């Protein structure tokens, strides 16, 4: 399909991004503020020969998405915090069985039912630590309608490349704002697809990784037969309670994300070159921060921003590097401090100041400007 231009909302841009990435299976359950993705998919998926399936709950949704992915179909779900809470057990299953899939979380106010129609960024740590056990996750944080499209495509690419679930973590404001969206010509999109095995089926070891730490994926219906389980398993996929098998598997599952993090981490450096104060932000608050930084620059304050387009894996080295360049770091996020603690861990001894806002309206530009001035006066 040639290039298309739309004036649309972030949720719909996300759905279109998934379709452009080649997603042909959506399993979901209606939830505010992600419902528009489901509604859009219910119309669009059949048009492209795919399936929109509405399940009885989010648990069935995510598990069905794992099943669909094992047939070789790019698959996804979209929900909000309460839905993610229900999905987390099977997020672990997807991690353990190395299943590519995308989970979109249009973040709303929490805890619990919270404020369904108001945005927040309270699910950053949930995405990282929500399921039990040691694992790494990939999470992208778009800040505009166009990024909702672009980063959903990227989420699929990363999930396919590293055979792992990937979160798109967008706050409600990004999900519901309307902006111009350019959907590129499909031939201009770079799409990834999981590695498939090439060995003789009799020699196939379904969980033996290549040098990139990712194993080629046998699919249901192919000539490769396998057993996949959420139990700790060896290279054959067979369950094992041996200590070395557990250590090797868990280490590899973590390393395949951490050691490939340079291919995953995506950051925007905004006016940072001569900055003495750095703002770290993502999603909607980062838009306020840009305006605040421009205003501060007009007043001669040397301030810039490191905008996180990905929060997981955490950009440890980049934050440490930034901390060595500036005198102060301000973390502006729409919660009571989540990325803040990660920044503190890697910025030390550079002082890190939290600008928290655990509510629907993000930090406004003048509020961030005031904070910048307050820090400058220290």
């Amino acid at each position, binding site marked *: 399909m040639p290039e298309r231009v739309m004036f649309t909302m972030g949720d719909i841009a996300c759905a279109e991004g998934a379709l452009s990435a080649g997603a042909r299976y959506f399993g979901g359950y209606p939830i505010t503020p992600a419902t528009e993705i489901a509604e859009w998919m219910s119309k669009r998926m059949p*048009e492209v020969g795919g399936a929109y399936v509405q*399940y009885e709950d989010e*648990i069935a949704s995510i598990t069905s998405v794992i*099943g669909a992915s094992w*047939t070789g179909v790019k698959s996804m779900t979209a929900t909000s915090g309460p839905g993610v809470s229900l999905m987390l057990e099977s997020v672990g299953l997807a991690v353990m069985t190395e299943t590519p899939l995308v989970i979109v979380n249009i973040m709303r106010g929490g805890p619990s039912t919270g404020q369904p129609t108001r945005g927040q960024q309270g699910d950053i740590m949930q995405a990282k630590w929500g399921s039990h056990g040691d694992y790494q996750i990939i999470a992208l944080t778009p800040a505009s309608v166009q990024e909702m499209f672009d980063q959903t495509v990227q989420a699929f690419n990363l999930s396919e490349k590293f055979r792992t679930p990937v979160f798109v973590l967008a706050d409600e404001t990004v999900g519901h704002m309307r902006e111009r969206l350019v959907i590129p010509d499909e031939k201009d999109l770079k799409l990834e697809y999981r590695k498939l095995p090439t060995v003789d089926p009799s020699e196939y070891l379904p969980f033996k990784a290549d040098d990139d730490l990712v194993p080629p994926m046998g699919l249901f219906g192919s*000539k490769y037969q396998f*057993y996949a389980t959420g139990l700790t398993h060896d290279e054959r996929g*067979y369950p094992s309670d041996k200590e070395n098998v557990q250590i090797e598997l868990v280490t590899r599952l973590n390393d395949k994300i951490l050691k490939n993090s340079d291919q995953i981490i995506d950051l925007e450096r905004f006016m940072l070159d001569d900055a003495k104060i750095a703002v770290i932000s993502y999603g909607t608050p980062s838009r306020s921060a840009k305006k605040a930084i421009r205003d501060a620059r007009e007043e001669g304050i040397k301030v810039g921003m490191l905008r996180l387009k990905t929060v997981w894996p955490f950009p440890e080295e980049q934050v440490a590097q930034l901390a060595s360049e500036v005198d102060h770091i301000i973390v502006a996020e729409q919660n009571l401090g989540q990325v803040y603690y990660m920044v503190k861990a890697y910025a030390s001894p550079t002082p890190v100041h939290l600008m928290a806002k655990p509510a629907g309206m993000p930090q406004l530009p003048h509020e961030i400007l005031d904070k910048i001035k307050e820090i400058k006066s220290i």
Partner: protein
Amino acid sequence: MTESTPVLKHPMAKYIRSDRQPFIYCSGCSIGIVTGMIARAIDNLDLDITKTVIVSGIGCTGRTSGYFKTGTYHTTHGRAIAFAEGVKIANPELEVIVVSGDGDMAAIGGNHLIHACRRNIDMTVICINNFTYGMTGGQFGPTTEHERYSQTSPAPVGNIEHPFNLVKLAASSGAIFVARWTAVQARRATKSIEKGIQKEGFSFIEVIGACPTEYGRMNRFGDGVTMHKHLLEVAEIQNGLPPHEAELDYENRIVCGEFVNIEKPEYTAVLREMHKKLKE
């Protein structure tokens, strides 16, 4: 020994991962028998094992999928049917079989079971009902009879709760094929599994099994052989009986047979029709 003894190979061994033997099942358990039924059904129907997917959840029966040489997957607890739905919808060419236990399917996975019945996605679900959570040591579950003993329903009262009748549950939820057999009625049960596989829609086959290690021991039902003999004695075949009359009274009467066999538009077939209409 100078002469080599001929090794007899089980006729169904070709479908089983021999490098994963022995099974984890206790002696006297019914799950091995049902594993054999599934293998025989696959064999009798001459299914292409590369196009067959066997899925199970967690628990003793949950381990069954992993012994087959087809594509197999061992899901989180209770989610086998939900996983299988994704597989079947994403690739309707595949033959999807789910095998799991009563706890996995009727307690933690109960919601998925009833909604899958309602949705009518073509798959065959085999529930081995041994009335207990065997893997965790024998606690009462959703099919444990009232006043039966278990690790969590001790004397003097036993189980305070009342059981599901899975045949009634599946039938009233909309399954298009519903049958119940005991593990000793292997030929009849295998036939029903074959019918379920051949039917286009959601088929549910309950197989009443014995857990002598846990449930049997705590309720003084005797060893595996005794328990299976009992199943044979109390099984009462009533093919075609309205499903709401398919009673299950472990002590006296287990009504067996095929109770539902109807036609209804199947999910993936309707979806394919929709794809066609949208192309026109």
